Structure formats: structure tokens, C-alpha cells
């Protein structure tokens, strides 16, 4: 047990700080708001290019595909995340954290060169076409069909929960290509432009009042048969590769820690009947209970980081992060809403609104995150089966009609 970083990593951190001191004025958000949309996009692209050049974005992606070409090192990745957060500077991205690793793992040489470099530069953005109205937790039952006609797949069906579909250039999409095969073996993973004729994107307004998601409809959408990642019928396994990368991000304890600081600030600032909320023993105790959980999750993440840095699979500490972390964030927001009384119910840019209404927004959004990316109940199945070794639910025989 040694919580200090070795000299090599301390030097890495110092170099990064020097870089940020010298360059942070060039990052998006630091350059002021007097720019047009097009200029802002250029600033974001230049910033990303500068970060890749210096090895602070797309770190482990090979140089030939536009990355920084460095060895995987979870500690360096952690230091980068910490310092960018400390400087409040927008970090770079590794393209789409679901698509890029999947193409690099399973795509052809031609696909890697076509898709990865522009994605890393921020010139090609993505949305994910997985869930369907009738296929949520049971994703493998999806029914969007694609049949081959000449050199093309022809796609018909509907996707839902598609974040960013109205802005994305491209979609990676699961479609059923072998309707006769067992459900897990009849799916293919296609990539295509969102400008392809026959695609209709309709915003899906959620309880927060925002349209973060969309429904996407496909009517005779023609996609060249070369735009498949992996083989026909192997899309389920390709997609699992993607889900592995997506789930990592949900329930991040750093987010809970910074949210806890914001909760403390508002409980110290607000008063009810002349008493600081922080001095109300009920809310005070609730806050302290949540702080105990935040600390436990923070040290749990240090344990995961240590396992990764040794090349070991973290196991149970990792399987619980999404379940526990999303719930914890939700409860932190819930504490503020309860403590604010009537003020806590204000929304829609109301007069007297506190913190721009973010506590209600978060409280609702977190509920979406508890459900999305694998529901809490699916997470408990995963923990019960993969980590504790309990048996799966027995499969029912198909009900005959």
C-alpha cells in the first residue's frame, strides 16, 4: 500500500501541468464566447489536435490511425483526468469511446483508416443504434431488419434512445440480417452516414424537458455490404465489445465527490426559518451518510485503478460501480431537493430558482442513468451471476401459440 506516485509519474504530472499552464488559453471555453459556431468548432478541433500531438488525448491509439501511439498506462490516464479536472479545462477525447475501440479491435484495415482518424479529429461524430421499442434489456431480440439487395444491405425498422442522433454524422447500428438464426447469431453491426436517404430522426423529449434522445426510423435505407464490422451474424459479439467500453464511464466516483462539495455549499448557504440547513440535524446526518458512501466509492476506484495498472482484472469492485455510483449521485441531488423545501421544486427558469435548476435536472437525469446503459436490475443480475457465481434464470421453452 503506497498512495504516493513514483518519480516517473510525478514528473509526468509536472510536465502536464506545464503544458496546461502554457496552453490552457487555447482550450474551448477559455477563449471567450465572441465566436461564431464555425470558429468554435475550429477551436475545438485545434485543441484536440494539440492534445493528441502531446499525448494527452487518444493516448493509446496507434499513430497510423491518428492517435498518440503510446503504451496503455492506467495511471497516466488517471493523472490526465485529474489534472484537466483540476484546471477545469476541457479534456480531449479518444473519438467515440464505444466505436473507436471496437473498430480497432475488430474492423478491417480499410475500415480503421476510413473511420478512426476523422473520428479522433472530431470531424466524424457518432450515435449508437442499439435499443428498440420492443428490445431494451433483451437487446438481442431486436427486430430492425436488413436484407441484401445487390451490393447493399436494405434496412427497415426503428431505433430508440439514440443520443445525439440529430447532430451525428454517422451511426453504428445493430440489425438482424439472419432472421432464421438463433437470436444472438442473427445480428450484424453496420456503420453508415446519418445523411443516407430513408433515415428519419425524431427528438424524444424526456421528463427533464430536454430532448437528449431520439427515435430513429429506417425506411429502405441502403448501405453498402462492405460497411459491416466483423462478419454477418456476429454483430452481437461485436456489440458486447462496445458495451464493455460504454459501461466503464457510468457512476464515476469523481463526479460524486465534486457533487458532494456542491451539496455542502448549498446547505451552508441556504436557510429555513432562520436556521442554516446545515444546522438541521436531519439533513446534516443525511449528508454525512452520503459522504461515507462517496469516500467508500472513491477508495474503491483507487483499488480498481491499482488492479488495472498491474494488468489485472478488477472483478467485483468494478462490477458494482455503475449500480452504486448512479444511485449515489441520485441521492445527493435528492438531498438538496428535500432540504430546499418548496424552493427545491422550482424549475423551468422560475424566479427564485437555485443553482439554475440543476438539482431537479440531475435528480431526473440520474434516474435515466440508473435505467440506461443496463438497468439497475440487469446490473444486479451481472453481479449475482458473474461476480458471485449464482445460476442464471432458467430459460423458458418458447410458448407455442
Amino acid at each position, binding site marked *: *500500500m503506497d*498512495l504516493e506516485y513514483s518519480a516517473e509519474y510525478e514528473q509526468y504530472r509536472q510536465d502536464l501541468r506545464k503544458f496546461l499552464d502554457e496552453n490552457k488559453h487555447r482550450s474551448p471555453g477559455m477563449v471567450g464566447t465572441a465566436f461564431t459556431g464555425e470558429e468554435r468548432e475550429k477551436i475545438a478541433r485545434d485543441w484536440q489536435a494539440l492534445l493528441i500531438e502531446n499525448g494527452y488525448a487518444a493516448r493509446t491509439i496507434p499513430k497510423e490511425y491518428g492517435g498518440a501511439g503510446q503504451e496503455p498506462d492506467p495511471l497516466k490516464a488517471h493523472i490526465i483526468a485529474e489534472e484537466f479536472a483540476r484546471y477545469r479545462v476541457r479534456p480531449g477525447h479518444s473519438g467515440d469511446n464505444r466505436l473507436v475501440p471496437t473498430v480497432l479491435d475488430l474492423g478491417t484495415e480499410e475500415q480503421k483508416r476510413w473511420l478512426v482518424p476523422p473520428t479522433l479529429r472530431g470531424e466524424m461524430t457518432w450515435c449508437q443504434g442499439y435499443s428498440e421499442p420492443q428490445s431494451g434489456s433483451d437487446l438481442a431480440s431486436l427486430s430492425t431488419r436488413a436484407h441484401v439487395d445487390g451490393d447493399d444491405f436494405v434496412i427497415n425498422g426503428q431505433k430508440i434512445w439514440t443520443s445525439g442522433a440529430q447532430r451525428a454524422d454517422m451511426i453504428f447500428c445493430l440489425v438482424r440480417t439472419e432472421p432464421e438464426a438463433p437470436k444472438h447469431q442473427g445480428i450484424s453491426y453496420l456503420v453508415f452516414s446519418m445523411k443516407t436517404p430513408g433515415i428519419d430522426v425524431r427528438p424524444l423529449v424526456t421528463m427533464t424537458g430536454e430532448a437528449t434522445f431520439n427515435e430513429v426510423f429506417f425506411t429502405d435505407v441502403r448501405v453498402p455490404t462492405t460497411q459491416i464490422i466483423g462478419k454477418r451474424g456476429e454483430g452481437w459479439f461485436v456489440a458486447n465489445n462496445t458495451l464493455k467500453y460504454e459501461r466503464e464511464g457510468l457512476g464515476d466516483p469523481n463526479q460524486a465527490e465534486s457533487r458532494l462539495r456542491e451539496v455542502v455549499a448549498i446547505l451552508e448557504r441556504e436557510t429555513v426559518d432562520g436556521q442554516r440547513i446545515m444546522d438541521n440535524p436531519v439533513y446534516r*446526518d443525511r449528508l454525512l*451518510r452520503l459522504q461515507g*458512501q462517496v469516500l467508500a466509492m472513491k*477508495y474503491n476506484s*483507487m483499488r480498481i485503478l491499482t488492479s488495472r495498472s498491474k494488468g489485472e482484472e478488477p472483478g467485483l469492485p468494478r462490477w*458494482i460501480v455503475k449500480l452504486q455510483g448512479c444511485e449515489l449521485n441520485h441521492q445527493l441531488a435528492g438531498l438538496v431537493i428535500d432540504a430546499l423545501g418548496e424552493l427545491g421544486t422550482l424549475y423551468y427558469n422560475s424566479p427564485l430558482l437555485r443553482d439554475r435548476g440543476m438539482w431537479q435536472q440531475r435528480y431526473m437525469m440520474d434516474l435515466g442513468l440508473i435505467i440506461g446503459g443496463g438497468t439497475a436490475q440487469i446490473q444486479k443480475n451481472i453481479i449475482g451471476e458473474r461476480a458471485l457465481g*449464482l445460476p442464471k*434464470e432458467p430459460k423458458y421453452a418458447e410458448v407455442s401459440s
Partner: protein
Amino acid sequence: MDFALSEEQQFLQSTVSDYLAANCTLDRVRDCVKDFQTTDPNLTEGLVALGVPGVVIPEEFGGTELGYLEAALIAEALGGSIAPFPFIGTSVIAPYLITHAGSDEQRASLLPKITTGEIQFGIAFTESIGRRVTNPTQANDGRLSGEQTFVIDGSDCELILISTEGGEVFVVESPAVEREELKSIDRTRSLTRVKLDNTPCEVLPGTVDDPTLLSHALDIGRIMIAADTLGAAQTMLDKSVEYAGERKQFNRVIGSFQAVKHMCAEMAAELEPCRSLVWYAAHSVLAIPSETHLVACHAKAHLAEVGQFVARKSTEVHGGMGFTDLLGLHYWFKRIGLNRQLLGTPDQVREEAAQAQGW
């Protein structure tokens, strides 16, 4: 940056766990506690042979001085086997206070006898946390008068460490005080009421005018209790998973039902981060002492809550059997229940944590 146990630490913990698995079975524990005995001489002998009581005692006094993380790993193993062994007071709190607040003479006379198992300590700190009596313990001219309730491990001990309101700590010989055994739900650990009437005592000189030593000793004790609960709760989870994987109803093992599987998953999801919290708190004692008070309070409180949750869910997973004496699961349930209240209830230590942050 390495937040993990070393090979030596893993080896230490598995050595103690393996010893307890063989020598501290449920049948042995039942046998030992049936007449409200709370120590097992054979167990004490074996644990002394493994060096357990010397884990934080300097080598010059016969200990191994491995440290507080190692002590927490032992506490976890002892909790896992509901061992009737006075570890927290005799092997951790007393050595800490005697080493850091004792005179040269006290160190030389007391510490070696702890390592050999010759003396055991009762811990009487209810004057400092959770006082419930109207006649506080007071020192006068080298003598103590007053009453201390809920003395931990007070029944079979040779000496008692007694704190007074100002944070001074005194050593008293057990035969010199009037003792009355209390009977808590947890029969693996003794609680004793002690009455002092002009009882001769010796102060630990370092605690005079320096209440921080007692406060640090309390924090260390809280970390050890949290570790004990961690071990006990882990055993309850392991037993639940094992039972859910064997017990059949409706021609299926019950662990394949989501209602049961999810209870097991919830226990694991709550308990696993607790391990990191206990490790961090125990590691902080020597490595980051400025953080110890806060994390010790949180470890104590959070393990109390999660321990209670696991104890309840685990009993439910075992169905009617979980409720019986036949299965004996209640020994872990009750150990967790007592741990929750010792050296500061969850709400008390959370309030201490709030104040420590200036809230």
C-alpha cells in the same frame, strides 16, 4: 500509487483466517460462550503463537510492529469467525496508548506481557463517548471514583484502561474494582459494569494535558471495530451465496430467482466498497494521520449501516433457517449488532465527522 495489499499482508490475513477456520468453528464458539465465557484459552494460545497480540507492539518489547492495516486485517479475520478473543482492546488500543503515552517503566512492564498473552485489558472509555451515568469517574490523589458502564472485554482481564472526562487514561488492576457482567446479544464479547471507589490507579503520563492521544486511540479502535464488522458481514454474504446456490424450491436453486439473487447482489454491492474504506482508514493511521479522524468516523458509521443491512438481508436469504439457533447465523448478526454501538454510535461519529470538517 498502489492501493492493494502486499503479498505479506495477504499472507498474514490468510494465515490467521486459516487458523480460525480450523480452530474457531461455530461448534467451538457455541461451546465456549455457553456459560457466558467470552474467551477461549486454547484460541488465545494459538493466536499468541501466531504473534497476533504483538501486531502493533515495537520489536524491543517482543512485538512485530507490523502496523494498523495489518491489525485491521486480523480484526477482519476475527470478525469473520466471530472469534471470542479480546483483540481490539488488548492487542490494539492498549498497546497504542501504552507505547505513546506510557512511561518507560509502564512500557517495559506491560507491553511484553501483552505479546505473550499474560495480560489482557478491559477498555472503559464511556466517560469519553456515550456516558450514561450521573456519577462521572474522577481522579483524586492517585485514586479513581465513579462508575463506568459497558467496559469492553472487562470480564477476564487483568487490567482495565479507564478514561476520565479530560482525556486522561488510567491503568487499574481488575481485582481492585467491583465488576458486574452485563449480558448483551453478542455472547462472543464481554461487556462489564465497573464501580470505582477510591480505587488505586496509575496514570499513563502522556495523556495528562494531551487529550489527542485518547482521541486517536478511539479512532484506531473504531477502525478495528469497522474491520471486525467487515469480516462478519463478508461471512454472512458468503454463507448467503452458498445457501442460495444449494437450497432448492420449485425444482430450482433459489439463487436463480431474481428476488434472491438481487438480495445477494445488493449485499455485495454495498459491502465491497467498505473493504476499501477500511483499508484506507487503517493505512492512514501511520501514513496520513491528518485524515485518520475523519475516515475512522466514516468507516465506523458506514460499516455499522452496511453491516446492519447485510445482517438483515442474509438472514432473509436463509429463510426460516436463518432465524434458528440450529444454523447459528445469529452469532454474526449479533456481533454486527454490538459493534454498531461500541466506541460511538453511527449518528455520534457522523456528527464528529461533521464537526471535524467545520460544518
